[in-house]
């Protein structure tokens, strides 16, 4: 599977589905190699070998980095249901069956004091209702959500936009290490991957897919949280926009036109919607 990821023959967000359909990563790898133009083979074989990859995995384990693939039973259940799930996750800490009740709380890096307070409050309320708070370990709203959940004694999981060997931003190094020891820090990128413009949007798709729903606290027109709202809705996951967001044009468009978007004022409303939409005994009514 890592060889398939390294070779980049298939788009990252279609690789997991292709592997699952094939039933075996090795068979898919062999099929792809067979289909290759033989003249390209010399170039291909200069790429990383399976042996080298095995050594890498062993070295990750020495750093306490585990690997969970889409073929493992431990792969997160919510993520399994979305089209753009990554083939493998790198992980510090441990996944939990409780992660099925994950809610992402996201927003701007440059947040107002009100926004930070609101994020922490929502995180606390979610934890009190046995939800797991997921965020991206960025400055601002993300940090406030993680800290709010921790202070309330709840589980909070970080899904980061770099490889696990990196800390971004640096001031959250301690928080990242704490979460890696006590709950989970997840990355879909090779552990050495640095922060790039494209890593964050890809990460947002994994965060929205890992969570049952995304709550956007404060986010301007160019925010990554806005991007996550779009990705969540494409995955069929509800998005909750705090009413204060409606001063932004994008939030108004979402509120009026997009399916699965709910404008809320309190975390209690978020919980009520989630308890309904994900009820075990859910039935349809006209």
């Amino acid at each position: 599977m890592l060889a398939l990821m390294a070779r980049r023959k298939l788009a990252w967000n279609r690789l997991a589905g292709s592997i699952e359909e094939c039933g075996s990563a090795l068979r898919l790898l062999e099929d792809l190699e067979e289909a290759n133009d033989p003249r390209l083979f010399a170039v291909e074989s200069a790429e990383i070998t399976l042996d080298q990859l095995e050594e890498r995995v062993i070295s990750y384990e020495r750093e306490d980095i585990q690997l969970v693939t889409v073929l493992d039973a431990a792969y997160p259940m919510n993520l399994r249901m979305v089209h753009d799930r990554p083939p493998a996750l790198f992980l510090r800490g441990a996944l939990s069956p409780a992660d099925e009740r994950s809610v992402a709380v996201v927003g701007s890096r440059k947040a107002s004091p009100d926004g930070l307070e609101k994020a922490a409050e929502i995180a606390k309320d979610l934890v009190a209702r046995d939800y797991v708070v997921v965020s991206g370990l960025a400055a601002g709203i993300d940090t406030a959500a993680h800290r709010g959940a921790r202070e309330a004694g709840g589980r909070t999981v970080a899904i980061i936009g770099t490889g696990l060997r990196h800390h971004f931003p640096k001031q959250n190094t301690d928080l990242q290490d704490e979460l890696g020891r006590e709950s989970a820090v997840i990355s879909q990128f090779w552990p050495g991957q640095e922060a790039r413009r494209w890593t964050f949007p890809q990460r947002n798709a994994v965060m929205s897919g890992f969570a049952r729903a995304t709550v956007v606290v404060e986010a301007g027109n160019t925010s990554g949280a806005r991007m996550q709202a779009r990705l969540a809705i494409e995955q069929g996951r509800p998005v909750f926009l705090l009413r204060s967001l409606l001063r932004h044009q994008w939030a108004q468009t979402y509120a009026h036109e997009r399916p699965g978007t709910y404008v809320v004022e309190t975390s209690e409303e978020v919980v009520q919607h989630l308890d309904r939409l994900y009820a075990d005994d859910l039935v349809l009514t006209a």
Partner: protein
Amino acid sequence: MAVGVEEASRTYERAMRNVAAAGPGVCEVCRTFIDPNKYSRCHPCAFQPDNLAAVVPITYSERLGQMHTALRNYKDGQSRTVRRNAAIRLAAILWRFLGDHEACAARAAGVEGFDLVTIVPSSSPARDEQSPFRELTGWIRPLEARMRQLLEPTGAVEGREFDADRFRPVDDLAGESVLLLDDTWTTGGHARSASATLRAAGASEVALVVIGRHIRPEYVPVDGSGETCGKLLKGLPESFDWTTCAVHE
């Protein structure tokens, strides 16, 4: 706990695409993409028995896209939670669509309305016994009075091709018109096999409403054009319009 049909039906709306109108480059039956210079129907629709009075796909379903993922998860999802979560939302799509467009399908089929509604069974008797699609369609309350099991798999036929021996009738049909429901149309072999058996059992007309018209994004309908089905899908309007359908007038 209850969720409204309209709310649930919109879950995958951003992944749904209205099927293109029949015309150049679009199969006049199943609405897949074809070479406009050579054909008016795709190969399977041109060469299988033409025994469906109307074929009405609700949305395209791009291979490995979110609709395809949902259409797989409701059957093969790893846990009951995953399967049911997808199933209830797909049931809502079918419920809402039929409420608005069953009459369109009937008109296209040349009948006043459908006397009976049934599903295309699985080809394997073991799988059919616990058919997730039968369970899903069972939640669509407006269909309850007309919903009947009319077909069962013989178990003798595998694969996707049309085969009149794939299913056998459960009952004789005395000239009734039948609305056939299915989750996915890939080549139409299953639906046409089902229709052949229903017609042989006496059905007057059989029409099909199917949730997803499966599309392989890498397929290139016009040789050498480089224009893939994936690209053609991207060119379709992004917002799904519930007020129209493949046979809307």
